[in-house]
Structures are given as structure tokens and as C-alpha cells.
């Protein structure tokens, strides 16, 4: 079966499709999230060798941190598609994803601070991982501020897409801030993100929560994309037609 992907690059086709997908992602977010939390709180050991119950923050912290970085890659990917194909829908999706990415970054920083207080005895440290994650938050905020500062949609699309591309440099810095080949060269307080040695139930709950967060990261940007489309395409025939049918 061949799918004409270019058909979906039209806001008029994407809008109703997104409307159909939203409830599906909503249900998936809730069900998988409830299951993940149940597993994380009831099927895992209370105390580990080096961490007590507070390690359970992992079920929120890791998914939020992963999504904060992943969503930035998505913003850049859509911005790039927008720049290459001059596709206005791609810019709109990038704009719809960014605020959710910023929220994920705030959550990663907040839960990280709380976990840091219990585990290291400090809310904050200018450690490479935390500092680079904070810079990511500033990049998200800068991207959103630039978009809203330029009135002309086409110019704001292109300017913010270029800014997003430049900001991509932050992602490998965040990743390698704790995973550098020579541990002596990056003395981070934050532990490296190795999956080995993690108890299987904890890993399972963490990955389940990640899937739930991922579904959420489809849900809200799809909702926001529809708002952006409505706002921007309000003088087109299909929006007028749709509003008339709704009345």
C-alpha cells in the first residue's frame, strides 16, 4: 500500500487527522501511565544498595529528561523539513512541540533537584549535566520568544527554525556530559546513563513510564498544532466551511 505522504502536508488534511488521533493518544497516555506507576510503586524493591525509596523519582525524572532532549530533536527535524520543502505545516508542528519540550525540561530539572537533595544532599550543582539541561530550557524559551516576537508568520517560521538548528549543539553536550569516554575528564556529580546493572522491574517501570510520556508528547502537540492551524488558516475556505458546519 502506498501512502501519499504529501497529502498530509496540507493543514486541511492534517487538522481532522490530528483530531482523530488525539483521543487515542489521550487514552494511551493514561492507561500506560497508570500501569507504569503501579509497577514502579508496587512491583519494585523499596531499598536498593545505594539508594532508598527516593530512587522512585526515576520513574518521572528519566522519562521527562529523555523527552526534553527528544522533543528538541523533533523541533529541529520539523524546522529542517520546513526550511528544505518550504512546508508551512512543518513549521507549525515544530512550534506546537516546543512548549511541551520546555515543560519536559522544567520537569526534568525539578525532579532532578528533588532527587539531588535526597541523594547528594543538594538541590543544585553547576555540574555539566544540570548546566547543559538548564541551557536547553533557555533555548526552548528563546525559540518560543523569537516566534512570538515576529509578527510576520513566514519570517517568524524561518528565523525560529534557524535558531532551533543552532541550538541543536546543546543535545550532544547534554548526552556526553555524563557519558564521556574518559571519566577523569568530565567529573560530573550526575551518574552516567548506563542501563546495565539496573534491576529489571525498575527498568520495566521506567521504560513503561517513558512510553506514557511519549504518548503525552504526541497528545498535547497535536492539540496545540490544531490551534495554530486554526489561527493561521482562518481565512481559508476549508476553515470557513468547517466552522459553518459546526455552527
Amino acid at each position, binding site marked *: 500500500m502506498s501512502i501519499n505522504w504529501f497529502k498530509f502536508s496540507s493543514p486541511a488534511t492534517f487538522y481532522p487527522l490530528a483530531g482523530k488521533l488525539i483521543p487515542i493518544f489521550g487514552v494511551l497516555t493514561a492507561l500506560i501511565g497508570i500501569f507504569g506507576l503501579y509497577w514502579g510503586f508496587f512491583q519494585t524493591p523499596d531499598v536498593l544498595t545505594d539508594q532508598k525509596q527516593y530512587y522512585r523519582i526515576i520513574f518521572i525524572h528519566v522519562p521527562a529528561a529523555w523527552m526534553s532532549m527528544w522533543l528538541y530533536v523533533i523541533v529541529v527535524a520539523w524546522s529542517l523539513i520546513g526550511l528544505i520543502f518550504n512546508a508551512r505545516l512543518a513549521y507549525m508542528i515544530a512550534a506546537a512541540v516546543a*512548549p511541551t519540550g520546555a515543560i519536559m525540561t522544567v520537569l526534568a530539572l525539578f525532579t532532578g533537584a528533588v532527587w539531588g537533595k535526597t541523594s547528594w544532599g543538594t538541590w543544585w550543582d553547576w555540574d555539566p549535566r544540570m548546566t547543559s539541561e538548564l541551557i536547553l530550557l533557555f533555548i526552548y524559551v528563546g525559540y518560543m520568544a523569537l516566534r512570538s516576537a515576529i509578527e510576520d508568520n513566514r519570517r517568524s517560521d524561518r528565523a525560529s527554525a534557524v535558531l532551533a538548528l543552532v541550538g541543536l549543539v546543546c543535545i550532544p553536550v547534554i548526552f556526553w556530559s555524563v557519558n564521556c569516554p574518559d571519566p577523569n575528564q568530565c567529573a560530573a556529580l550526575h551518574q552516567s546513563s548506563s542501563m546495565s546493572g539496573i534491576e529489571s522491574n525498575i527498568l520495566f517501570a521506567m521504560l513503561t513510564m517513558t512510553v506514557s510520556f511519549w504518548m503525552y508528547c504526541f497528545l498535547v502537540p497535536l492539540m496545540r498544532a490544531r490551534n495554530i492551524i486554526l489561527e493561521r488558516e482562518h481565512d481559508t475556505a476549508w476553515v470557513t466551511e468547517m466552522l459553518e458546519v459546526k455552527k
Partner: protein
Amino acid sequence: MSITEFFHMGGFGLFIWSSVGVTFALMAIEIIVVKKQHGTISKRLTRMLRMNKKVDQ
């Protein structure tokens, strides 16, 4: 494990539940805000449409 023990989390309840709570609160607020925006935009556009029609008539 009793309910009190569950919420106490070995003395770390405040840390764990604040993480979970803030996450849910932010997610819920984001959904509500985006949903409200949708309502506001639709209403405004419908009103504009009606006004334009009146002008045309």
C-alpha cells in the same frame, strides 16, 4: 504495606510525591490551557465569520 507507610515512603514521601504531583499538575494545566485556547479561537473565528456575513449582506 499500609496506606500510611505507602505515602510515607520511608521518610521520603514529600520528595517523591512532590515530584509526581508537580508532574501531573503541569501536564493537567498544559492540557487544560491548550483545550481552552481551542475553544477561544473557534469562538472568535465563528464570530468573525458571522460579522463578515452581516457586512456582505
